[in-house]
């Protein structure tokens, strides 16, 4: 694995209210270059909300996000008006986001999906953007699908195409929001393989997922969230195999008892007969591939 570098993204004291519902109670995270951070926790723990606050898809109520010289503060009362928008867009250009349901643009081919933002947002020359796109499509093994429309691809292919699209912006940090939760069990593996490859090659990644096998294989650090707070944090072997905090123990016990098979080092193959259909993954405690 690539040695970790300096801090590239820093979120400080992120709090989030949805109306009167206090979802995040002050979560901070500093991610170093080449680091892979995994956020785990039950549904409603705030992990996805926190991830979405990092690129301001969700406006934090309190807190700030920093990347290099760029610092964007929460502005719930909108006192900054439009002045903050360029900063937010700058932040988003430096972070690639992967969604549970891919969100590829259905009216564009895979290649068009990949070059849209580089050409029209970053202002890259179109030929260059195509070369870059082909490089990353090759990396996710979808080069032969470059002129295909998303409707004609499987879920696993769509998510890999979405990864290529995010990579084409050459972001500092990749954010994964339950990238395999909407996939049929037999398609999860191909996405996990790509994610592991990215992690090993030194991409900086923040991943919300229930794929414990991925955590063991690729994560440098695991954060367990509950009730909008980071309850426990550490290297995957410590948090997953030897948790110190009672909530973490409880979560893992329930989570793993409902998973099935024992983990192996390169356990990216998902199918467990006990798994529910892929989409039930994110919202329940069902899982697979863990164990201990």
């Amino acid at each position, binding site marked *: 694995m690539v040695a970790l570098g300096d801090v590239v993204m820093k979120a400080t004291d992120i709090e989030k209210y949805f109306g009167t519902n206090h979802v995040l109670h002050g979560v901070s995270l500093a991610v170093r270059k080449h680091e892979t951070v995994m956020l785990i926790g039950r549904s409603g723990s705030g992990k996805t909300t926190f991830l979405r606050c990092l*690129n301001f*898809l969700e406006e934090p109520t309190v807190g700030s996000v920093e990347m290099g010289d760029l610092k964007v503060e929460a502005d719930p009362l909108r006192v900054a008006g439009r002045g903050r928008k360029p900063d937010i*867009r*700058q932040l*988003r*250009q430096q*972070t*690639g*986001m992967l*969604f549970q*349901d891919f*969100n*590829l*643009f*259905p*009216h564009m081919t895979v290649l068009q999906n990949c070059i*849209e*933002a580089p050409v*029209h*947002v*970053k202002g890259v020359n179109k030929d260059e953007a195509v070369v870059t796109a082909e490089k990353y499509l090759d990396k996710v093994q979808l080069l032969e699908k470059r002129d295909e429309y*998303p*409707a004609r691809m499987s879920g696993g292919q769509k998510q890999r195409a979405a990864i290529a*699209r*995010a990579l084409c*912006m050459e972001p500092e940090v990749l954010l994964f929001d339950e990238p395999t939760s909407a996939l049929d069990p037999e398609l999860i593996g191909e996405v996990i393989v790509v994610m592991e490859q990215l992690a090993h090659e030194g991409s900086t990644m923040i991943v919300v997922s229930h794929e414990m096998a991925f955590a063991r294989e690729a994560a440098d650090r695991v954060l367990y969230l509950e009730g909008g707070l980071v309850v426990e944090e550490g290297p995957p072997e410590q948090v997953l195999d030897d948790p110190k905090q009672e909530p973490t123990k409880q979560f893992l016990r329930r989570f793993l008892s409902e998973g099935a098979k024992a983990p192996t080092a390169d356990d990216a193959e998902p199918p467990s007969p006990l798994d529910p259909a892929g989409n039930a993954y994110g919202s329940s405690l069902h899982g697979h591939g863990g164990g201990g």
Partner: protein
Amino acid sequence: MALPSAHDGTAMTGLADSRNGDQGTPPGAPPDAIVDAIAGADVRRRVRFRALFVATWVVIIGGLALSFIAAGSFDVEFLAEWAPFILGAVPLTVFIAISSIALAIPLAVLGAVGRISVAAPVYALATLYVSLVRGTPLLVQIIFIVLALPRLVPAVNEIPLLALGVFALAFNYGAYLTEIFRAGIEAVPHGQREAGAALGMSDRRIMWRIVLPQAIRIVTPAIGNEFIAMIKDSALVSVIGVQELLWRAQRVGSANFRSLETLLLAAAMYWILTSIFSLFQERLEQRMARSDR
């Protein structure tokens, strides 16, 4: 269509055959004879339905035509003489409908973007447009533009009547299409906007590059419906003297006390036109349904 079901039948027969060859007929698998018989009965039922459908139409329409002629009130020779003149207006009617809808669509896109705008004046303007236009009769709008508007804007007098008629239709349909487009925009999944935003795209770019192209696909069938309605509503511009299909039918009819013949001809022509475009639209929808996600 009878063909697919017959095809299904043979496919099922083939399946049953291979099963028989492998390990004998599994329990519950129907023998070939029954499968064939069911498929055959299916085909016969559909053919009979179609035949009865056509026969019913022929009887009703033919019967009406014959009774008109038999009663002596329908002058076929007169109609034959004047039909070329009346039908000569069909291209104009089609032109009015096409150009009006073509003008209404960009108007509707702007209107729809206004209707979802967070800027209060823009939203207010778009809402006023929709409310005003939908709340007053199209006929009033058409007459107003020709008779009343020149009092406010004298230059309107210089514009040809045809252009004013097209503008009136487009202005009216633009309001209805605005609401259709707004619904289409709102039907684009929210994740699409998030994906655009996450890539750093501006709100405007997300709207024009991501949301609108998808919204247009969603509303295409509805635009087809509006176009078909437009073919019929184009008849309204006859009141301001645009010499389209209804205008000619009415002129020839009332001048010769033969309105029955001329109006029936015009009505039949509208019916044929709308039927042709309905068929065309049905095909388009089928094709879109196939290629869609």
